[in-house]
């Protein structure tokens, strides 16, 4: 009871710090949402009337029918007929087209006699955010066309669209980025907040004064978590709101489950910040450690921008040490795949273990005495 009162006093003091320091308040509440809006709007460019070229080796009825369908759709605008596939590269480089369709020589013949024919869809893989959408729009038109030709009763002919990405072979899906940014931002801001708030007290000398009082070190550490959990949660809510309503990322799974896991993830970030503060004696050091340890690794190793299965095994294992790797799986699972709590049990457990390890490790390292 007495400890609870002391704890309340500590938390009240932390809140006063936060409320009176408009810079950290802005950082806590403003920057995350601004970052997500920024990254998100780069990502969700509307695709309409994308310029395309067609290489029609067949020049038969079937190819013309499909080309007509493609060029009259709202997504594509046919700007050029090319004679050979070799010319495509040049058009891409000039920037006149964003995508090309290549029809096989015997397109119609193969379709009717062999039951399948090929169209090649070529897009610019370096335009990582739009090309996948272009490809999928192209596929949709082709598949619709096939479906309209095939009565459902008989297995008829079909077209196999083969897809080739130029310049960048591994692509991420369209909605991968918002959950990815969300996990990076929450982790960075959370870890920075707690690590800076403790190292600040070391710099000012108030930590020495705190250590000269009979206060329990568990309480000092725990009191640093509570206020930032609340502010980080508000900031996470604004990010989720932006994801859902501004970027229309589908929320296929349970929102409650997502929020619960977000709280857990915020706790992981804050506890990690505590741990960092036990290794740093100044705010500058704390910031350097947090940035080096989390910023680049989170972007590269946690599957946010690059698929992790193409990384060397050692880096994959390093990635597994990052909390964001697991939260990426959880948030993408819930948002995009509608995953239930049960199927995410493993990832959630890992986050729980991480919180415990970070917290207790930092309490052990946080010495009640100076050295």
């Amino acid at each position, binding site marked *: 009871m007495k400890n609870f009162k002391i704890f*309340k*006093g*500590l938390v009240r003091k932390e809140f*006063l*710090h936060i409320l009176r320091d408009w810079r950290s308040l802005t950082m806590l509440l403003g920057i995350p949402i601004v970052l997500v809006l920024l990254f998100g709007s780069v990502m969700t460019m509307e695709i309409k009337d994308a310029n395309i070229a067609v290489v029609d080796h067949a020049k038969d009825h079937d190819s013309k029918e499909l080309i007509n369908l493609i060029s009259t759709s709202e997504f594509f605008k046919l700007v050029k007929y090319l004679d050979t596939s070799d010319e495509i590269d040049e058009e891409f480089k000039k920037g006149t087209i964003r995508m090309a369709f290549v029809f096989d020589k015997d397109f119609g013949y193969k379709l009717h006699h062999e039951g399948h024919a090929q169209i090649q869809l070529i897009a610019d893989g370096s335009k990582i955010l739009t090309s996948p959408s272009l490809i999928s729009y192209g596929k949709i038109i082709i598949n619709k066309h096939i479906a309209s030709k095939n009565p459902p009763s008989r297995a008829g002919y079909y077209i196999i669209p083969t897809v080739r990405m130029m310049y960048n072979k591994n692509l991420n899906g369209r909605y991968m980025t918002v959950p990815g940014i969300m996990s990076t931002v929450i982790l960075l801001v959370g870890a920075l907040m707690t690590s800076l708030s403790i190292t600040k007290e070391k710099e000012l*000398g108030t930590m020495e004064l705190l250590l*000269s009082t*009979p206060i329990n070190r568990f309480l000092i550490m725990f009191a640093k978590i509570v206020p930032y959990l609340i502010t980080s949660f508000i900031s996470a809510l604004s990010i989720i709101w932006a994801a859902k309503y501004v970027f229309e990322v589908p929320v296929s799974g349970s929102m409650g489950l997502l929020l619960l896991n977000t709280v857990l993830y915020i706790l992981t970030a804050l506890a990690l910040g505590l741990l960092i503060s036990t290794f740093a004696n100044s705010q500058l050091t704390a910031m350097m450690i947090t940035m080096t340890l989390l910023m680049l690794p989170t972007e590269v190793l946690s599957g946010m921008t690059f698929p992790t299965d193409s990384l060397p095994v050692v880096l994959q294992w390093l990635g597994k040490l990052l909390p964001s790797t697991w939260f990426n799986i959880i948030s993408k699972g819930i948002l995009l795949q509608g995953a239930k709590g049960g199927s995410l049990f493993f990832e959630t457990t890992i986050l729980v273990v991480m919180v415990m390890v970070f917290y207790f490790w930092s309490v052990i390292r946080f010495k009640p005495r*100076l050295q």
Partner: protein
Amino acid sequence: MSQPEKAYSISVENLTKKFDDFVAVDKITFNVKKGEIFGFLGANGAGKTTAMRMLIGVLEPTSGKGEVAGFDIFKNSRKLKKHIGYMSQKFSLYDDLTAKENMRFFGGIYGLTNKEIRNRTKELLTHFGMEHIEKERVSSLPLGWKQKLAFCTALMHKPDVVFLDEPTSGVDPSIRRQFWEMIYETAEGGVTVLVTTHNMDEAEYCHRISMMVAGKMITVDTPQNLKDKYKLETMGEVFLHLARGYEKEHAITAS
């Protein structure tokens, strides 16, 4: 207070602190009576702050014995901390909180009830004529007032011993005088005061002083006795005389 009545508030025997090979505090021995104002005098780097940090339980001593307010500094540092107040060399209250909020916070940490905190805050601020700064943010106060406030905060939980580490460095003379009046009033109330300084005028105000040179305590006595002994006018001269003598003696033995 609940601790048994002891002859001494602080008693230290051969207390030593080593940082790797460097001996910061070298076998110091002294006793301080209840209600006494005891000064640690010495140049910067003489080991005053290190000695004080061991006595308040934030720094682990390497060897020796020590008891503060009836508690062993090795075994009972947690209990000891309840009975002492500390004012560090660097001003260290929270700048973004008001005077009252700082006092409330530290009172709370020592487990005082809200009522006790209210009464004690009012009592201290009124007693030392500081009521008007109650609602001021600490950052807006002049240094002298900050130091007086830090002293009040260190007294919130009615400690038996207060440790003041260079409390008046950088403070102008009139406020310094007021500060020493605060120290006297506190000591008269039965609180033991241990204060470090490198200001020789201030040394005259202490009941007894100890001089530290290079981690060693070279003398412990009242200012008057020291001046009589060496037939010198001021404490400054006494200090120079003793420090030079010590260094000379050491230079000879070392060569």
